[in-house]
């Protein structure tokens, strides 16, 4: 371990403050649900098809219930009512609920209500058992074909066409990639539904759909067997459908999800309440499914300056960790994000980057961490760009990053060419091989630049955490403390999908996922 830099007691104190910071948010989470959480409940019951016009059945049903003002009793309850009416299929259930006049949506007798809930609870338990069985299958394959040692080299494919993505992903795996991420189509985070089926048209990426997940995971299972190395698959649980994507990913045996408690608020202007509530349910699903989350703190220092805002990354990681732990995630599932983004025209940036990465490793010793490459100050000189990326490779192995997204020499120009990934993988492989164990050989002096900078950044992180505790997280975000972006509690997209739970709110999956 490179240096303590700070006392264990100070790190524990930061962790303690972070859990206090999130406490008020949990009052909100407990008392509310969202239309997206309710759609996820229906998906957990197996409602995965789309109706006429390609609109997901889950949207048809929840929109109808919301319009009637009864969705706050829980979609699971209404699913039970549809079964009670004799629904034979999910589409039938939607049609029966849609056909009911508002007057017919009144509660039934206590006896019937009790039986109905019991029946639905049993069905929910069976659905979760089936999900667990699928996850066990994935885990068996993971055990059969162990991965190479960390840092796991993570690369992105983004053609827009899932079948082209499959070719690119297999090629990347053959070239040495450890993890594949399929980037989503631009603006999918703002869609208040999950598109349906296999897709071949996307902008800047490929739509995240359950069928696309299945197609890619199937291809990577085949490739894992061929290469005798398990190749994890990553997608994005962010935006207006965090929990639905988390369910689709869990069901289709994905391994990782980009999932951040605050990213949508800051960078996609999604309403704060909506995001906090959605992230909790999505993370409960990730916890059950053994999915590793990747948080998005790296984004703070692509908008704000990486040198000046270094402390915001660390403070946010403590907050993200606190949210994650409250949702049942374990340390090995926390790919807390950070990146190599300090302006390379400054002096001593390797020391500064090492300091930051070492400090984060120091604060989160058991988390895999997710290290991101330089992007903001990338220039179009590919030879310089390549050298710049290689320094991030060195910092990654030195600080034992679990997951490293590899930089591409053509960053700032176009989506990576196939050969760009090959070149990045070859050099990262070399650096990781060459420098493995370097952290055991060099002790970082406690009175030097690296340690002093780490202490300074940690101190500023503590100040920011204190501010969040004193003023509240909502106010801190309102002041633009994270990523220089200011958001208000009632601004942004998706607030209309937030509902206060009725006293008889029913969600058996939440009970199961919370271990009740």
């Amino acid at each position: 371990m490179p240096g303590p830099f700070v006392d264990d007691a100070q790190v524990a104190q930061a962790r303690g403050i972070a859990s206090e910071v999130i406490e008020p948010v949990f009052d909100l989470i407990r008392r509310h649900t969202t239309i997206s959480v309710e759609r996820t409940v229906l998906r957990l019951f197996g409602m995965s098809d789309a109706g006429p016009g390609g609109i997901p059945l889950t949207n048809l049903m929840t929109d109808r219930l919301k319009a009637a003002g009864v969705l706050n009793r829980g979609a699971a309850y209404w699913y039970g009512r549809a079964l009670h009416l004799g629904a034979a299929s999910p589409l039938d259930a939607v049609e029966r609920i849609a056909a009911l006049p508002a007057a017919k949506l009144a509660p039934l007798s206590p006896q019937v209500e009790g039986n109905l809930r019991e029946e639905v609870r049993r069905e929910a338990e069976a659905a979760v058992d089936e999900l667990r069985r699928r996850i066990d299958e994935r885990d068996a394959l993971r055990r059969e074909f162990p991965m190479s040692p960390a840092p796991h080299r993570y690369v992105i494919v983004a053609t827009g066409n899932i079948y082209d993505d499959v070719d690119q992903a297999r090629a990347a795996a053959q070239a040495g990639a450890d993890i594949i991420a399929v980037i989503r189509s631009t603006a999918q985070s703002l869609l208040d539904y999950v598109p349906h089926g296999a897709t071949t048209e996307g902008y800047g990426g490929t739509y995240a759909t359950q069928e696309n997940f299945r197609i890619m995971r199937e291809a990577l299972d085949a490739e894992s067997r061929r290469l005798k190395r398990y190749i994890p698959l990553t997608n994005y649980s962010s935006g207006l459908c965090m929990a639905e994507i988390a369910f689709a990913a869990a069901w289709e045996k994905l391994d990782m999800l980009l999932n951040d408690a605050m990213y949508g608020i800051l960078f996609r202007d999604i309403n704060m309440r909506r995001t906090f509530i959605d992230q909790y349910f999505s993370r409960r699903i990730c916890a059950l499914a053994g999915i590793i989350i990747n948080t998005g703190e790296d984004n703070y220092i692509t908008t704000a300056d990486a040198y000046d805002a270094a402390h915001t990354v660390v403070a946010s990681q403590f907050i993200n960790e606190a949210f994650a732990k409250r949702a049942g995630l374990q340390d090995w599932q926390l790919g807390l994000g950070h990146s190599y983004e300090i302006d390379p025209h400054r002096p001593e940036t390797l020391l500064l980057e090492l300091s930051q990465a070492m400090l984060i490793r120091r604060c989160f010793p058991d988390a895999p961490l997710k290290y991101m490459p330089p992007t903001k100050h990338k220039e179009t000189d590919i030879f310089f760009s390549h050298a710049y990326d290689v320094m991030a490779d060195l910092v990654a192995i030195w600080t034992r990053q679990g997951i490293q997204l590899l930089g591409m020499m053509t960053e700032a120009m176009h989506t990576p060419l196939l050969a760009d990934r090959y070149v990045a993988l070859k050099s990262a492989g070399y650096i990781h091989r060459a420098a493995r164990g370097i952290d055991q050989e060099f002790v970082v002096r406690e009175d030097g630049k690296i340690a002093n900078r780490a202490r300074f950044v940690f101190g500023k992180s503590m100040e920011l955490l204190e501010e969040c505790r004193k003023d509240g997280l909502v106010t801190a975000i309102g002041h633009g403390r994270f990523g220089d972006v200011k958001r208000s509690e009632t601004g942004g997209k998706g607030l209309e999908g937030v509902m206060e739970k009725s006293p008889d709110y029913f969600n058996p999956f939440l009970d199961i996922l919370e271990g009740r």
Partner: protein
Amino acid sequence: MAGESHPIRAYGDRRDDGVIQLSFTLPVPLSDKAKEAARQFCTRLGLLDVKVAAAEPAADNYTFFVVYGRADVSLDYGSIDVPEIVFRKLGFDELNKLIEDSISRRVVVLGACTGTDTHTVGIDAILNMKGYAGDYGLERYPWFEAYNLGSQVPNEELIRKAEARKADAILVSQVVTQRDVHKDNGRQFIDVAKAHGLKGKTILLLGGPRVDHKLAMELGFDAGFGPGTKPSDVANYIVHALLKKMGKEPEDLHFEGEPA
């Protein structure tokens, strides 16, 4: 302006050796046959003395090549016609001083990444305080009043806000280029600008990694800025364009770093 004859060739390590390097991928497995294919490919490009320096298995069915060869191409540098630089590029303080002296009010600039594009990296680099590659963004210039509206801003909204603030210039950034979405969105922006009577009145600029001046002009913008553009390039352009509109600088004045 054309000058005296001045023949040039690519320079490797001696004058006129014509040596160039290139890299590319062919969709075939690595083999001697693949290497010969790469050599023939480069010969067809017109290269002489082709040397396939590296042939690497980028994947099972793809081979990545690094090739050297000699290009038998000679250009008369004297005949290359690029407008001469009259004005050298002004630095931060000089440009602020020029605005203060010649325009005497703050120059208002609004920018956004419009349409469905979520990537703010380009517009942030130009407008945000911090800037890019050590070059300050427009927000930092005391004589600019710069507003960065972020990403996924509808073209109509950007134009409405620009009208409300009486903007001198509007910057549209486009990063995502799949299926030419940047061109379609750029055209749509110009259509809206025309409908609002801004074309010819407000300076309309397009930027992005796959944008160049020619493309921007074709789409109807006043200028385009591609990869490597520094905030100071955009700032200089806007000030000169304004001074030209005000009749304080000749229409045919050229300056260092202008889009070409």
